[in-house]
């Protein structure tokens, strides 16, 4: 099972290393990791995507909580939340297929942010599924490069 875990940590020297050391030492696999500041500059939020059964997830959550610099751990699990990832995709493009690529981009409500003689850079945000779908559509044109920010997530509602 894929889990989205949100970890609030003290914005201190070495915190990222602590988290990654923990995952490596315990043999947990990270699919994606995104780190950034929160509304409180002393606190960072890490969004971690982990795969594993219930037992592993229980350990991941507890082990994270045990780290002294970790303030709070939330496993979104099935709870109502939104997820977003931002991807930049560089696709081979020339005169002959540029408009076709632009159509695909439009359908996915993605944006073209750079055009050169032989390529286009497309920016898209969305959840995992949307990015995968767009990527599948772009593949036939030839994807030269892709980079992603990693998934960030937030619970819905007033919490």
């Amino acid at each position, binding site marked *: 099972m894929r889990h989205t875990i949100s970890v609030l*940590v*003290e914005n201190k*020297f*070495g915190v990222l*290393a*602590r988290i990654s*050391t923990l995952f490596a*030492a315990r043999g947990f696999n990270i699919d994606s990791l995104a780190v950034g500041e929160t509304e409180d500059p002393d606190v960072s939020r890490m969004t971690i995507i982990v795969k594993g059964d219930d*037992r592993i997830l*229980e*350990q991941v959550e*507890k*082990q994270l*909580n*045990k780290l*002294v*610099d*970790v*303030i709070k751990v939330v496993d979104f699990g099935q709870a109502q939340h939104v997820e977003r990832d931002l991807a930049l995709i560089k696709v081979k493009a020339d005169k002959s297929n540029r408009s076709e690529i632009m159509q695909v981009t439009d359908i996915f409500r993605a944006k073209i942010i750079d055009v050169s003689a032989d390529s286009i850079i497309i920016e898209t945000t969305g959840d995992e599924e949307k990015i995968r779908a767009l990527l599948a559509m772009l593949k036939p044109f030839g994807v030269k490069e892709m980079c992603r920010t990693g998934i960030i997530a937030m619970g819905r509602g007033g919490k």
Partner: protein
Amino acid sequence: MKKTGAEIFVECLIKEKVDIMFGIPGGVLLPIFDKLYGSPVRLVLTRHEQGAAHMADGYARSTGKTGVCIATSGPGATNLVTGLATAYMDSIPVVAFTGQVATTLIGNDAFQEADTTGITRPVTKHNFLVRDVRELARTIKEAFHIASTGRPGPVLIDIPVDVQRAETEFVWPENLEIRSYKPNYKGHPVQIKRASEAIDASHKPVLYVGGGVVTSDASKEVIELAKKADIPVTTTLLAMGAFPPDSPLSLGMLGMHGTYWANHAMQNSDLIIAVGSRFDDRCTGKLAAFAPKAKVVHIDIDPTSISKNVKTDIPLVGDAKAILTELNKTVKKASHEKWIETIDGWKKKHPLLYKEDNKLRPQYVIETISELTKGEAIVVTEVGQHQMWSAQYYSAKLPRHFLSSGGLGTMGFGFPAAIGAKMANPGKLVIDIAGDGSFQMNIQELATAVLNEVNVKIVILNNKYLGMVRQWQEMFYGKRYSSTCLHRHEGCPPKCNEPGGKDCQIYIPDFVKVAEAYGALGMRVTDKKDVVPTLKKAFSVKKPVVMEFMVEQEENVLPMVPTGAALDEIITRLA
């Protein structure tokens, strides 16, 4: 008035009531060592930083107070690592200080620079790099707090030399609030009620007690629960002494070299009440076959211990003492006569046995120590066969009186830990039960012991082998003694597995001469009848003593649950 970082360091140690610390100076620690000179904090100069870390650990294990050690940057810090890992695995409160190159040089591969916080991150509960002198006092306070609360563990503070020289106002934070660190001590009342009912409903309960009981000082509460609900008690290596060994409810140690009856009790139990123990693989044997009929109540302060290896039915996160106190109020008085009779049957079938003849057997030496000291000495062990025999044949009567590296299994732990324990308990007899291999791993601390008049007694059970490994080679690798003979020399036949043959060369070193060279008393025993007089003499001499007992070389530790076997697939004798 402004103070330097080094002055603040000493002030903080005084505030934390540190009376003694163990360590070795170096270039980047000069400012701190200058302020320690003549200060009320005693620095015990060790001969190796690993020794310093184990001494701090032994000090902590024997008292419950936080042990303190200090090492210089680079090699000093890396030498601490084994000691920190040892303390970490056994949840021992230690604060380690390391010097670091100046903040301006960090990251430049400066002389004696090592990424100390990076290297020690996986073997400490927490660590800090202090980059501003204004953070120093608070960091030290936090370190002592974190090391000693919740599930204790080692905490390291790395202090660059320029921070030691920089000046600031000294402010000791009286109160400490770490929002991300709040251990939970009180058990959940609903869970306590469930546990209490499960105990009342059980017919074959076992209390499986670990080091957490010692940490939380909950021995008395365990005894009360055991007596009230008539529950047999098995202890882990780290909890030896936490339950009186002469009680009819005592099952001794469980696990790989545990007693036949403790292991069978676990396997047949219908309710295991784990208190401050963590279902480590040396205790459970093959997990899939572990205690198939048992419900599990698990009391532990560390939530990660719960359901990590064995699924817990009733988890109880909190302090063992606090939770047991509550449980003792509600648990009903009970009697489990039939269950205890069954266990006694197992005990009669396969008691702990060794051959009692005229030969000098290691078990006999330990049993004699147990009798002479009435189980009231502080016994520290190294790692190997002698360690397991100590757990089996030394009847520790009190908590914090049997100290052993359980989790990491660190050879070389015992002797320095014994020095630390003796310095913390000068009035007590402190004995290091050592293997000939292990003792050589920190033998240099004889200088520390002799010069500081730390009168520890070292009992070397010299089997001339890395005995525990040799035993595995005998049992599982066709008696191919690959690199386990400690007096194997250049001219030996390549595949020798005959101990004490006529071609054997002399054993090196001569431990008696080594002892004498360091100014300790050395004694060698080859004859069983000299065991008692030698021990008696050693215990009465006011000097560190090294006793070398030339024991049977191929004695094995039994019973034994082989790796991958279930606890009841225990081998009681070799074919």
